[in-house]
């Protein structure tokens, strides 16, 4: 089955400005035609996409697969299957595996397992420092050669701002984008929730807004100093969004993303010590959520991520501060993004851009678009079909989601990866 046509769908390709009823034709893993089939094209299979939206496969800048090192939580095979069912065809795997992604051997291992699974492209993010310890630089040039499109220190802090400066300079020497989780570890202290009225009432150690804004200000200053390309991973405060908007006005090479759950939940959701809403960075105020939404609407936040973190049930079964942060989120990335359309924050094509060409542009990769010759990674979804999220029906090994029972819209019907149907329902 090398040739495939997707017929009658509403094709939305934000990168190429297309939103029209256009047929899509695929030959040996590549898009070979839009509209009328090329020459004597005779597809092995035709997908009837009438009433459906055809868009590029989703690109996710942050999804933990838990392999190697935490296979009791999830595996590359299980999570790439979850990705396929969520319409995600490319994902970046942060380097906080065990061992960390700080040598080409680990990159190779992850890529090989992902290839064997064959449902999604997995891009390992290289570690900035050895063992993520924050002190000595990892061999970034070798990591790039092995296939890392960018480097990151995951949630681990760098030992000093001097190490950070050197890391930015070294990474930029080799054209590597640096993904930073902006957080000052000392201001964070032992916090586990937003420092605000809810954490005050619940007596939970708070993480102040300044833990993020201080880090963003510092990182922007270093960006000015070094000229290195910085991507801010996972914002949580409205103030950080405004700082990034100003940096963009100053034409600094920065970009930012947000986890989808930050656009829907707030600190109020942890009330009752709900560990499903224990996330990192923490859920903050309604004003922060609105600020993040405004950043997504303006484009200052160019990408929405799943920030997928599958856990075994025990990891969430403890007093709130001891629970593991994170949400199993690959399967809610598309429906939550589409909810922004329903809530009139974004037009449909702009929403799709935030999960396709937006994140691809952060990486500087020609993904998340459907032009002739592009790789045939495609998501076909029903924009109207309502469904209720049932954690037990999720493909991911992690069932940890606060969105259980939410009515979602936007059901993935087909996911194509390299021209093959890797998921259909």
């Amino acid at each position: 089955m090398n040739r495939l046509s997707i017929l009658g769908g509403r094709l939305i390709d934000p990168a190429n400005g297309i939103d029209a009823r256009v047929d899509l034709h695929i030959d040996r893993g590549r898009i070979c035609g839009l509209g009328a089939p090329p020459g004597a094209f005779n597809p092995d299979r035709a997908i009837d996409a009438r009433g459906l939206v055809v868009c590029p496969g989703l690109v996710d800048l942050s999804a933990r697969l838990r392999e190697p090192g935490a296979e009791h939580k999830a595996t590359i095979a299980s999570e790439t299957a979850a990705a396929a069912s969520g319409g995600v065809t490319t994902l970046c795997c942060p380097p906080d595996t065990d061992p960390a992604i700080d040598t080409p051997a680990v990159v190779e291992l992850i890529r090989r397992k992902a290839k064997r699974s064959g449902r999604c492209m997995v891009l390992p993010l290289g570690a900035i420092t050895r063992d993520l310890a924050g002190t000595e630089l990892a061999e970034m040039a070798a990591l790039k050669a092995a296939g890392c499109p960018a480097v990151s220190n995951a949630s681990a802090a760098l030992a000093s701002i001097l190490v950070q400066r050197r890391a930015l300079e070294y990474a930029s020497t080799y054209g590597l984008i640096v993904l930073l989780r902006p957080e000052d570890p000392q201001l964070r202290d032992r916090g586990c929730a937003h420092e605000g009225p809810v954490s005050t009432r619940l007596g939970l150690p708070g993480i102040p807004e300044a833990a993020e804004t201080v880090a963003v200000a510092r990182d922007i200053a270093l960006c000015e100093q070094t000229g290195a390309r910085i991507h801010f991973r996972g914002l949580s405060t409205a103030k950080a969004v405004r700082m990034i908007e100003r940096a963009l006005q100053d034409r600094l090479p920065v970009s930012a993303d947000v986890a989808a759950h930050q656009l829907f939940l707030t600190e109020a959701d942890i009330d009752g010590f709900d560990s499903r809403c224990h996330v990192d960075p923490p859920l903050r105020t309604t004003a922060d959520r609105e600020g993040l939404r405004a950043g997504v609407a303006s484009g200052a936040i160019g990408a929405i991520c799943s920030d997928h973190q599958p856990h075994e049930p025990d990891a969430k079964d403890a007093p709130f501060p001891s629970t593991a942060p994170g949400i199993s989120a690959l399967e809610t990335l598309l429906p939550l993004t589409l909810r922004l359309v329903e809530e009139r924050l974004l037009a449909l094509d702009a929403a799709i851009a935030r999960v396709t060409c937006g994140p691809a542009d952060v990486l500087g990769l020609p993904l998340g678009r459907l032009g002739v010759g592009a790789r045939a990674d495609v998501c076909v979804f029903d924009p109207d079909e309502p469904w209720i999220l049932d954690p037990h029906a999720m493909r991911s090994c992690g069932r940890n989601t606060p969105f259980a029972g939410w009515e979602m819209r936007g059901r993935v019907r087909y996911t194509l990866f390299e021209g093959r149907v890797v998921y259909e329902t």
Partner: protein
Amino acid sequence: MSGHPNVQLDAKGRLRHFLTIDGLSRELLTEILDKAESFAGVTEQTVKKVPLLRGKVIANLFFESSTRTRTTFELAAKRLSADVLNINISTSATAKGETLLDTLRNLEAMHVDMFVVRHAESGAAHFIAQHAAPHVSVINAGDGRHSHPTQGMLDMFTIRRKLGRIEGLKVAIVGDLRHSRVARSQILGLNALGAAEVRVIAPRTLLPPDIRSLGVHPFHQLDEGIRDADVVITLRLQKERMSGAFLPSEREYFQLFGLTEERLRAAKPEAIVMHPGPINRGVEMDSQVADGPRSVILAQVTYGIAVRMAIMSMAMSVGEGGREP
């Protein structure tokens, strides 16, 4: 807890667990105080026992060390004729890697009827209550910085006994509000029971930035904060606040926030002085105040038994769908 069913009440709104004062009605809190009043007599009799909880097993589950609280809980349980297990977990199961849930299940298998839980993490008592078997009651004896509701209620009881009421009073709480579960419970109790004003007095390092959201008025000067107060409560100051850069020294703290007879003149002449104990003499207050006529600190300890008897007997009468009408 808006949006969350109050896990500590049963379907009829009666006390099933006692985890926090948050969300409890003035009526229920008053019922606890009235019941404690009836038990206060028992503790003063020669035979200091009532048979209310005969045959019941109560486990004192202390993941954090405590002398006073554990002892008064034990006395309260014994005066209700229950059997008491004291389990000091910090030196026991968790040191062997057992999870909190496993510890709980094992004790349940021994047919324990009530857990009295102290734990260093906020939310621990809620967690245990959510996972406990239906017939088991959980009493929070202090969880992290969140709540210490029996202490809060014994403080309400002490105020009511000494001043006859809580309604309309001005109460000042001095000290480390940021780290204090006791203060959070006192504030909730005072506001629910109609205190006129709750003031908190501390340098900004010891106040959570959103302290006003708890319904209190923050002050940074002792004299101003205790002016015309009916009740002055001082909180215990932990030594580690000095190394954590919350305060420069005990000396400066005492100079600015320590209670002395002279400074107490700003409060009402009949004002009482409280402290949850143990006191650091010369830090939170000097000995003249601690041992002086306005101090009700030892009465707090005594009343703690009656209040805990009231709470334990109320929670136990509800389990298993209500054994008592």
